């Protein structure tokens, strides 16, 4: 495995397990740089003082928090770090919960946890205990001067560390306005839709889904490089039909034909 990004200890009760963290995910999105359309030259971001209208060097920049209109409290790096939390290099498990009870919306970012120095034996023990009980450890740890709520799970021989969102960060459904139809969907429509779901049911196999857009973008880049004109090709739109039942029936027919 490439180098670890954090070394420390995971603690539960009086048990301590030396661990190291590795990055588990990476973005494969095609990245562009900002360029000037007129001459293709790189765009630079320059800092300007809004009062003096003069360019400012990075070392003259400070960080301020706006406490009221145009009034800022300036904090330096150490002062911001003072809020990080004093937990040091320890992931303290506060308690264990049923891993299945944690709704997917809470999961933020995942890291792989490996056994640290002299940690092989207790690492295996924690993993096997979590696997056997179906539980996840909930705790806190400080990473890059910021404290995170985390869940530790056992997944096929490896301990995963997930940072979690806090409950107050999540928007409730009631905050999203949804207009109600004057007449709800009928029983037959629901049954029909259920059959459609069953027909389209499959095992989740992540490898079946490639980022096709990534390839499409690379193709556009290549065509543009050859000097081709890039035009948007319009595709036929599906009908907006008010007869839900007819649409469902037609969908079901199509889905069955598509299935082996």
């Amino acid at each position: 495995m490439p180098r670890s990004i954090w070394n420390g200890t995971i603690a539960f009760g009086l048990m301590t397990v030396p661990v190291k963290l590795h990055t588990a995910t990476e973005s494969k999105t095609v990245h562009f740089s900002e360029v000037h359309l007129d001459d293709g030259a790189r765009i630079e971001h320059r800092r300007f003082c809004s009062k003096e209208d003069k360019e400012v060097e990075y070392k003259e920049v400070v960080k301020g928090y706006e406490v009221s209109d145009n009034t800022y409290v300036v904090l330096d790096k150490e002062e911001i770090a003072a809020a990080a939390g004093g937990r040091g290099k320890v992931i303290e498990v506060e308690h264990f919960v049923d891993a299945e009870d944690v709704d997917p919306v809470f999961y933020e970012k995942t890291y792989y946890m490996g056994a640290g120095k002299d940690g092989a034996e207790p690492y295996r023990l924690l993993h096997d205990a979590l696997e056997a009980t179906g539980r996840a450890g909930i705790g806190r740890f400080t990473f890059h001067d910021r404290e995170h709520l985390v869940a530790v799970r056992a997944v096929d021989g490896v301990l995963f560390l997930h940072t979690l969102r806090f409950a107050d960060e999540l928007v409730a459904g009631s905050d999203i306005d949804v207009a109600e139809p004057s007449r709800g969907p009928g029983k037959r429509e629901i049954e029909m839709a259920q059959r459609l779901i069953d027909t389209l049911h499959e095992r989740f196999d992540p490898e079946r889904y490639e980022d096709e857009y990534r390839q499409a973008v690379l193709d556009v880049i290549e065509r543009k490089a050859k000097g081709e004109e890039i035009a948007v090709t319009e595709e036929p739109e599906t009908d907006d039909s008010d007869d839900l039942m007819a649409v469902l029936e037609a969908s079901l027919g199509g889905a069955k034909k598509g299935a082996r």
Partner: protein
Amino acid sequence: MARSLWTGSISFGLVNVPVALYSAVRDLDVHFRQLHGKDGAPIDTRRFCSEEDKEVPFEAVGHGYELDGEQVVLTDQDLGAAAPRKTRTIDIEGFVDVDDVDPIYFDHPYFLAPVGEAEGNLRAYQLLVEVMKSTDRAALGRFVMRTKEYLVLVRVRDDRLALTTMRFHDEVRPTKDVDTGGRKPAKKQLDAAKALVEALSADWDPSNHEDCYRERLLDVIERKRKGRKITVPEPERAAAGPPPDIMAALRESLERARSGQGFDVEDSEDGDSDELEDLSREELYERAQKADVPGRSSMSRDELVKALSE
């Protein structure tokens, strides 16, 4: 209601429902602004052409990509041509069991709300909600938002269609090189560890966990505003090696968990004087008044700290 981040339609079989996308996460992070240290004025970031040394308006910015050492420049329109349908439609390709999808794939949660008042659309949206509510299955689909394609999982949360963007399989690294430790633990040891996990278990209740970092950061800002000194606390607990006797540590932990004792490794009792160090002279003087410290009015800040900590 916050503004929508994307509008288009969700397409399921031949059912097509116009929808708008809203983030299901609100940003509660404490944000700092870049300021000019000298005069405290906010910093503006301006785009400059590196060749002409002239400011460039946003409309004149394109997307550059280096292909075989040559710079290719694309406009927004060029990018829009890459997959026009996907930028407007969330195409549902199939339905999967939610439990089969490991959380490592989850990225950002959103809500979908129907757009417009058309009766047919509102009913079709309601139909999706009703049907998906009654199953443990979620719809798998994909769409393009802001020049990136997302694999998405659509299910129901709080009677709304909830969409979660996902990572593609090649964006999840293999685990084969992770050092996953030693041999299988002995049964006795595993039983003790399982018993400890159960003894330390509770129901998952997300409202029990607050973002202490956010609170502490706001507290630091408040203290700074009042002119107090900010000190960086020492780490509470240093990283440790494994316990010398794993079985003994498990037994002792289990005993303490069952009798409701804590696991504090050491208690530091001198927190009080640390706190005094952080106060301004004015605040120290107020405390000295309350404690009726003799000679307080002529004392310096340091003398007040000393007198109060005695």
